[in-house]
C-alpha cells in the first residue's frame, strides 16, 4: 500500500539532493539544474496530495510551478550567457564582480 507518506519521503529525498547540488557544485549550470530538481520535488508532493484528496487543485498549483520554472530557467540562462560573454567563466566562485 503506497500511502502519501511514501511520496512525501521521496519528495523530501529529492529536495535534499537538489539542495546538496546547489551547495556543493561550482558550475552555475549544474546549480540551476539542481534548482529544477527542487521544484520537481515540490511538484511530486503537490500531485501526491491531489491524488489522495481527489481534488484537482494540487495539479493546478503544479502547473503554475512548471510555468514559473520555465520563466526562471529562461531568464537565468540569459543572465548566464550575458555574464559568460563578459568574463568567460561559469564558475560561481569567480563571479565576484560585486564583492568588496
Amino acid at each position, binding site marked *: 500500500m503506497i500511502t502519501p507518506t511514501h511520496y512525501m*519521503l521521496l519528495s523530501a529525498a529529492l529536495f535534499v539532493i537538489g539542495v546538496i547540488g546547489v551547495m556543493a557544485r561550482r558550475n552555475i549550470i549544474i546549480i540551476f*539544474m539542481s534548482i529544477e530538481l527542487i521544484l520537481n520535488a515540490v511538484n511530486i508532493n503537490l500531485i501526491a496530495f491531489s491524488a489522495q484528496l481527489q481534488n484537482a487543485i494540487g495539479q493546478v498549483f503544479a502547473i503554475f510551478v512548471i510555468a514559473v520554472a520555465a520563466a526562471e530557467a529562461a531568464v537565468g*540562462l540569459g543572465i548566464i550567457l550575458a555574464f559568460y560573454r563578459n568574463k568567460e567563466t561559469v564558475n560561481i566562485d569567480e563571479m565576484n564582480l560585486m564583492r568588496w
Partner: protein
Amino acid sequence: MAEAIAFYVIAAFILGFAVLVVSTKDTVHSVLFLVLDFLFVAALYVLLQAPFLAAIQVLVYAGGIVVLYLFVVMLVNLKRPPEAHQDPHRRTKLGLGLAAAVLLELGAILVYTSTRPGTPVAAGGTLPVTGNTEQVGWLLYTNYLIPFEIASMLLLVAMIGAIVLAKREL
C-alpha cells in the same frame, strides 16, 4: 501490489538519476541524466492518476526547459574544467553533513506523523466535468483565472527579458 512495485522502481530511478545529475563531472552528461529524471517523474505522475500533468511535464520540462539548458551548455563548454577554482571559504563537507541531518529529520517527522491520526481535511467540492484534463481546465478557467492570467504575463515578461539579455547589441 503492482502499484507498489511500480512506485519503488520509479522512485529508485528518480533518486538514482538525481544523484547522478548532482555528482557527474561532465556537464552534458548531467543534463542528460536530468532529462531521464524528468521522464521518470512523468511516469510517477501517470501512477498518481494525473495523465495531463505527465504529458505537460514531458512537453514543457523535458522537451523545452532542458533543451534550453543543453543549448547553453553547448555554447559555454570550456576547455578548462570549470571546477578548477575554489573559494577557500567554502565548507562543502559541513554543508553535506547538515543536508543529511535535514533529510533524517524530515524522514523522522514524516514517519512519526504517519502513525498518528490526521486532522480530517475537507475534500474539494465536485466539479461539473469529469476527466482529469477537463477538471484541471475547469479550475484554471473559473476559480483560478487571475493566477492564470498573471502566469501568462510572467511568461511574456520572461520571454522579453531573455531576448534582451542574450542579444549581442541592444
